[in-house]
């Protein structure tokens, strides 16, 4: 059952259109919305507690999705497929994520309805090859980055949470062995996909994801892991966690199920990304079987991180765009000295620079993603995108608060939240994979 790109997008649209929940959310008045903010029970209630992934006896051969054909010309236009996804996800970000962002941040939890309606988007389907029940017929880092950008426009924190399972599905699709793909991927195509995440970051100053201190030691039956991870998105709720660790001095990634003995997860309070419920993960003599090692000899840890960075950049772009879209009307409406503050060059030029640097981040990231998508080398471009986003995202965050002055400092406006969320861009490496 192979679907072409249009069929794939239509499939997602149909699933979305069929959702009475999203309709309800989209049409709700702000009063109704406020009422339902009260029920911030978190999505845990809807996740399947202690989900188990059984080994499959007759697994399919490894499916390696191909890259897309390399176009002949420079082209900034999105194709029909991408445009449809951007429109759909953008609408969801506006109607659901932005509306719930403040509450979710305050509660450091995701309103159950948000997670449920996000599942209706069927994002994980785009990550999984048709053989395992998804709709992917090629790798699509560009589309992934566009999705991250759109979701983050609504709220970076909720975006990070929604993208964690998507990213795990992407990582297993890209790197997993046939057995691993057969075992885990079909679940991501079910109505209620597993909660899953990627644990890379460690609580160390100057932490470099290329050299984790978490270590894997070979045992008779597999591996024993010890170490400490932090800022693990949805850590405590996850049915599946991909964990990076050094094996014989080389960084590798291991698949750990939520029910695994020896892992301990505790909630962690952070400056931002609060709704993503970051957790600290302790690995204490975690005994894993041989097949817990993600992929085979072709696994490329650097590329694994590079693809995470593309998504991080996508989040930065989306939030920066949100800041630009918010500060423009604010500066036009806010008056001082008898006229809008936007009539002053010192204010107006900050807006110009916000726009220039947002587009700078976007184009450099898009180029890296489009190289990845057409199966060209992209390590250089991913590093350039990342270092640029690291710098510019925070600059935009702090300038957006500055433009609102005192109003930027209080929670009545979203910019202080964007400021806190944008600080994470330069710091985190886990949780994402394009």
């Amino acid at each position: 059952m192979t679907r072409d790109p249009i069929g794939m997008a239509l499939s997602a649209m149909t699933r979305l259109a069929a959702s009475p929940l999203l309709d309800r959310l989209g049409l709700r008045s702000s009063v109704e919305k406020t009422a339902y903010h009260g029920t911030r029970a978190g999505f845990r209630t809807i996740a399947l507690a202690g989900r188990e992934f059984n080994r499959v006896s007759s697994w399919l051969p490894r499916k390696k999705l191909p890259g897309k054909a390399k176009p002949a010309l420079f082209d900034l236009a999105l194709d029909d497929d991408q445009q449809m996804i951007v429109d759909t996800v953008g609408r969801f970000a506006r109607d659901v994520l932005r509306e719930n962002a403040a509450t979710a941040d305050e509660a450091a939890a995701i309103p159950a309805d948000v997670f449920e309606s996000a599942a209706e988007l069927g994002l994980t389907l785009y990550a999984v090859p048709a053989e395992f029940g998804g709709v992917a017929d090629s790798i699509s880092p560009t589309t992934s980055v566009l999705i991250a950008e759109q979701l983050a426009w609504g709220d970076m924190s909720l975006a990070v949470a929604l993208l964690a399972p998507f990213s795990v599905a992407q990582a297993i699709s890209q790197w997993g062995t046939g057995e691993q793909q057969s075992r885990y991927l079909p679940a991501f195509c079910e109505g209620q996909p597993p909660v899953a995440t990627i644990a890379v970051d460690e609580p160390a100053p100057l932490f470099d994801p290329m050299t984790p201190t978490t270590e894997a030691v070979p045992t008779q039956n597999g591996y024993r892991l010890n170490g400490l991870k932090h800022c693990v998105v949805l850590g405590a709720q996850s049915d599946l966690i991909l964990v990076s660790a050094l094996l014989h001095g080389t960084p590798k990634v291991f698949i750990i199920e939520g029910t695994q003995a020896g892992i301990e997860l505790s909630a962690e309070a952070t400056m931002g990304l609060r709704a993503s419920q970051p957790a600290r993960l302790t690995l204490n003599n975690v005994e894993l079987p041989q097949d817990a090692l993600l992929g085979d000899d072709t696994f490329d840890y650097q590329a694994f991180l590079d693809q995470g960075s593309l998504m991080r950049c996508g989040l930065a772009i989306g939030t920066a765009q949100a800041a630009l879209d918010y500060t423009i009307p604010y500066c036009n409406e806010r008056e001082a000295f008898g006229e809008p503050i936007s009539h002053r060059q010192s204010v107006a030029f900050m807006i110009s620079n916000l726009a220039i640097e947002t587009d700078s981040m976007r184009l450099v990231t898009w180029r890296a993603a489009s190289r990845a998508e057409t199966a060209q080398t992209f390590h250089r471009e991913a590093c350039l995108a990342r270092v640029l986003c690291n710098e510019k995202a925070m600059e935009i965050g702090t300038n957006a608060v500055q433009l609102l002055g005192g109003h930027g400092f209080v929670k009545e406006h979203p910019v202080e939240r964007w400021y806190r969320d944008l600080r994470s861009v330069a710091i985190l490496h886990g949780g994402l994979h394009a």
Partner: protein
Amino acid sequence: MFLETPSKFAPLIHQARQVANEVFRPISRKYDRAEHAYPHELDMFATIMDGMNDGAGDGGAGAGKLARSGAGNGETGNRNGTNMKTVLGLIELCRGDVGLALSIPRQGLGNSAIAAVANEEQLARFGNTWAAMAITEPGAGSDSAAIRTTATEDGDHYVINGEKIYVTAGDRADAVVVWATLDRSLGRAAIKSFVVEKGTPGMTVERLEKKLGIRASDTAAIRFENCRVPKANLLGNPDISVDKGFAGAMQTFDNTRPVVAGMAIGVASAALEKTKEILSGVGLNTDYQLQTWNLPAASRELQLMEAELEAARLLTLRAAWMADNGKPNSVEASMAKAKAGRVGNRITLRCVELCSGVGYGETELLEKWSRDSKILDIFEGTQQIQLLIIARRLLGKSSAELK
């Protein structure tokens, strides 16, 4: 979506790079020192470039071809045309030398102005003329609506009076496109451009400026004293219409700003490449990293500068791509110019710093590039003018509201 340089332009880029390496670089220092000396080496090269352009099946490249691409040619679908090709070529040429690139015969900014607003008859007449551009006056720089040079109708002629400064290639070019007002009381709508051919009585090159950089390019001050030009030399429409008059002339900039941005990218690329070569020669790690804080400060700075340069380059290609596809690109052209102008300057200056005495001395070209880059954040609209254009558009403000 695909952001790679199209392979069909690879031959052009290769040729331009050869020119940069084999023609420009070897004489770069010579004409930096011999300011105002005419670089004869360029004459033969210009002929080769004419041949390249005329022979090109897709409309060629260069200053005189810019506005003819994209808009209204009835083609549908994605196009990578003359604007992108010109930008890509200029990036490579300016990797060689900005001053020399500005001195290539028949590639003047006046040629872009002619291409943008000339009618068919004028295009035929001036198409092969090397044309400089004269806008700035001693009392009017960024505020080009405030120019005082006048053009007075007299029979079949206009009589031009006034003083122009900072005319790039003003002495060497065959003609100068002069901005003058038909009626100062009617404001910017009355400003028109006129082609004044060299040797026209009443036009005098007063002096050539001594400059910080781009010394290979002559920068002239020109006086017009009862200078009579045929009426047919007024570019575009002689009617004074509030809607179109000035805007038409200003539209030239939408096409030339990405080209100047390309120049900044070229010179900054040269500096960055040279600096990486010098620093890796003394053992500095120049590998790309996702987390750069454990690297030496110089390594991190190199990666960040390369990222900034990549951003400027892509903003510039975007503006050119939009022009090629007939999309309005004023804001994007200004974004490209603002970004490339400032990072081009910052990169070239930082490269001098990173190479220390090697960078500051005249043995290498690094110090020269850091002087050349400064003008690129000034001419064709300063950094501040670009930010103003962008802000007015984003905020929906008039020039009366956001001054």
